């Protein structure tokens, strides 16, 4: 049991550390990068969907009827 737990833990750690952590030349940039990207590792759609809806509404407000025509073209895209 102990050996199984150890092997499981070892395999998990090998998997976690399979890539080196990202780091930039500047500490503040590394900090900014990690703060902005860490929410995207778990349930990114919680952030993506509100962001996309805001972008869609803004695009409609800016473009108006052109936005509707673009969606018509997009629907033919498949």
């Amino acid at each position, binding site marked *: 049991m102990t050996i199984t737990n150890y092997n499981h833990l070892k395999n998990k750690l090998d*998997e*976690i550390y*399979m*890539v*080196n952590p*990202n*780091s*930039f030349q500047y500490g503040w940039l590394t900090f900014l*990068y990690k703060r902005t990207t860490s929410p*995207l*590792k*778990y*349930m*990114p*759609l919680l952030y*993506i*969907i509100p*962001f*996309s*809806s805001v*972008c*869609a*509404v803004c*695009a*409609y407000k800016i473009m108006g*009827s052109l*936005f*509707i*025509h673009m*969606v*018509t073209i*997009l*629907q*033919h*895209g*498949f």
Partner: protein
Amino acid sequence: MDFKVFFLNIAASFILVFKRTYFLIVSPYKTMRKISTDFDITQLVIIYTFVYAFFQVAHIYRPISNPPFFLFFMVVLNVFATSLFFYVISFAFGKRDIQFSTIFFTWSYTLIPTIIWFTTSFVLYFLIPPPRTMSFNGKLFSIVFTTFSLSLLLWKFILVYFSIRFSTKLDVARIVFIMLLYMSVLAPYIVWMYLSNIFRVPFL
């Protein structure tokens, strides 16, 4: 008995594909990391069967489009060429221990948002056929559809980044550089596909 094992393996791969699709939504980082440590031909066959099945069904309802096998071939060729591109560039960056199969496998899983978008667009084309109008319902649907499309696109970008990160083990700066290089090659290819009436929206 061999048939029993064969079908059980296919069933297990089916379950894995759906399970990984779900967890690519919930926790894409851990799931893509797990995918990069694995390689299963059956899962690839399942994913590309979904791709071919979509083209086949879409061709029945839109016979003016290209033959489904040709479109399927273009998709597989594109995935293969993309994987080869990243493999060669990563090799040039000094990553000699990466495997082409890992890049191909993880990149194939990034097709899932594409499959979802094309399937949904196909269904909506018949449920709520275009053109959209300036009525309240038309505007509402346009905003919802754009939100849906943009969400899938951003999710796909996240999956693409994680795919390259875990299959090539490069850092973010090099990945951004490679992606810019890839987009510079991809852009004329997308334009060519559009002008040749192969894909109006690229199946990438």
